[in-house]
């Protein structure tokens, strides 16, 4: 069976004026459909960089990224937008909600770009908001919510289009232990429902819930296939 995600010899360098900062130095990863993968590694090791490339939010300097048997580097920009919209849900450490929109509208955002009717958008968004337990906060602005609640909004937004892949970059990094653990439970449940979940974390407890842990140090995978 072919992998959902296949990464071969991936390199990423950031250009800062004349200096180039290497972030990924030849990464190889295979992830199958339905896996729950934790990515761990020290700060600055390239975890976010890898996640952004996997999420089609950034492009690699060199190497191959094959998503669903399609080479991402060959995909047109328009199609990439639709991949981000339909197949990937991204959850950030800093939530990245739109501050002037309420919960309902934030969650509807991916549906807008998917071209759903207003009625359908309202319906689908309501459903996922209920799933993350925020039905009574639908009309609230992000600033009126706690960190844990904001992250749940972000998760609702990530899953509203029912993507096959959910990427979360340190989703509990800004949260206290309790709400962090709630969030992780949500990711576990999503994985049980069939979503492929890839999550970056420092937390060994999180890693325990995963089927597999990928360790990354200095832009390299350390011991890729040990579960």
């Amino acid at each position, binding site marked *: 069976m072919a992998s959902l995600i296949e990464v071969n010899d991936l390199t990423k360098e950031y250009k800062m004026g004349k200096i180039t900062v290497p972030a990924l130095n030849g990464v190889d990863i295979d992830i199958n459909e339905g896996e729950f993968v934790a990515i761990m590694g020290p700060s600055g090791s390239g975890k976010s960089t890898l996640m952004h490339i996997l999420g089609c939010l950034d492009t690699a300097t060199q190497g191959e990224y094959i998503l669903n048997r399609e080479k991402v580097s060959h995909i047109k*920009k328009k199609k990439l937008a639709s991949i981000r919209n339909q197949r990937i849900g991204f959850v950030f450490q800093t939530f990245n909600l739109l501050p002037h929109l309420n919960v309902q509208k934030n969650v509807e*955002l991916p549906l*807008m770009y998917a*071209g759903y009717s207003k009625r359908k958008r309202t319906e689908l968004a309501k459903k996922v908001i209920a799933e993350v337990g925020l039905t009574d906060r639908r009309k609230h602005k992000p600033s009126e919510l706690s960190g844990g609640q904001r992250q749940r909004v972000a998760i609702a937004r990530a899953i509203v289009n029912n993507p096959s892949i959910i990427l979360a970059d340190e989703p509990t990094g800004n949260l206290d232990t309790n709400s962090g653990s709630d969030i992780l439970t949500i990711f576990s449940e999503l994985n049980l429902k069939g979503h492929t979940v890839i999550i970056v974390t420092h937390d060994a407890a999180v890693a325990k819930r995963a089927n597999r842990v990928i360790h990354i140090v200095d832009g390299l995978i350390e011991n890729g296939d040990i579960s």
Partner: protein
Amino acid sequence: MAISLKESIVFGFSDFWSRKVRSLVTIIGIILGTMSIIVVLSLVNGINKQTLQWMMERGGLSKITVRRNWRYDNPNKVRSYFTWKEIKLIRSLIPEAKYMNPQKRYWLRHSYEDKEYNCSIYGVLPDFSKIEEWDTEDGRFISEFDINQSNDVIVIGTKVKEELFGNKNPIGQFITVHERRLHVIGIMKHRYMKSNNIGSDNALGYLNRRTFVPLSTMIHKGTGDDNISSLALKAQDAESAPELRKKLEAIILNLRHGEPVFMIESAQEEAEEMAQSQKTFQIIFFIISIISLLVGGIVIANIMLASIQERTREIGIRLTVGARRRDIFIQFLVQTVLITFIGGILGTLVGLSLLKMVSGYINIELIAELSMVLIALTVSVGIGLLAGIIPAILASKLNPVEALRYE
């Protein structure tokens, strides 16, 4: 699946609403910018026009006048008036003059039935009406025939008509002046120009308090002398007026053996002098106009650009959840167009009403010309559109991570 153009326009609108405060602040910025540009440009233009209008009302820039020079104390008692013979000589020496009107003036009692009115009465030629660019409203002006026959006819100003005849039609009636019955043949057009002197509302009101008779009638049947105290001429055009004035000055000086008992002035030269003395003003006004354009533009650009960081992050978020570049572009276009056009239109309205107020206050008619409204709108809407859309285009070209990280 992707969104249609119509939907992205709708989203642009709803986005505009969802951030009412920011939209409002930006609109106010554009209102202020547009308004200040319109007000300043019209103010400058109005003041310049006022001066020019005065010149035009007085017979235009090609007019030349010859009057007694009161500043010359005339020690040799040289004659300070022209005889009819001299007038004819002067006319023959300056065939290039388009019109020439010698005139005599008295202050006399005019009576009709039991009413009386004291005012200036002028003896003139038909050319008077041409030089002053002032015709009759009713009846006719003095003709060549009236001059040749020294007819007992009179043309009156509107104020004279009002005082002597009230609502009655004066034409065909007889006014008695200096024991002579004069047939009323015409009423001059009413003259009016908004005055910027407090206390008088019509800067040209004195002209309505005059009457006119054929110069020949005044000379032969009135005073009996042909002392003509002043002359007015019209050159072919404003450009040739200074030339004609110099020639006329030479001729008249020659007639009086070099003694400057007459003052010969051309409106063109006066206007030039005035323009010269106004130059400093004009430069200041010009600078004010440019500053108002800049300030208006900067206010708008500043408000639009102030939110770039926030907007770039927003664009990053939207790109992350699947927006295409086109979606982003249309959203910001709709928003910016809405904001700038609402601001531009309101700014124009506020500017125009402000002008009306200022206009009443300083007593100068300030009407914004279409060109000024267009300049103001071009600057404010143009800068608003550029400042709103260009950053959005640039931001939508970033990849999502770059946009999210923007600082």
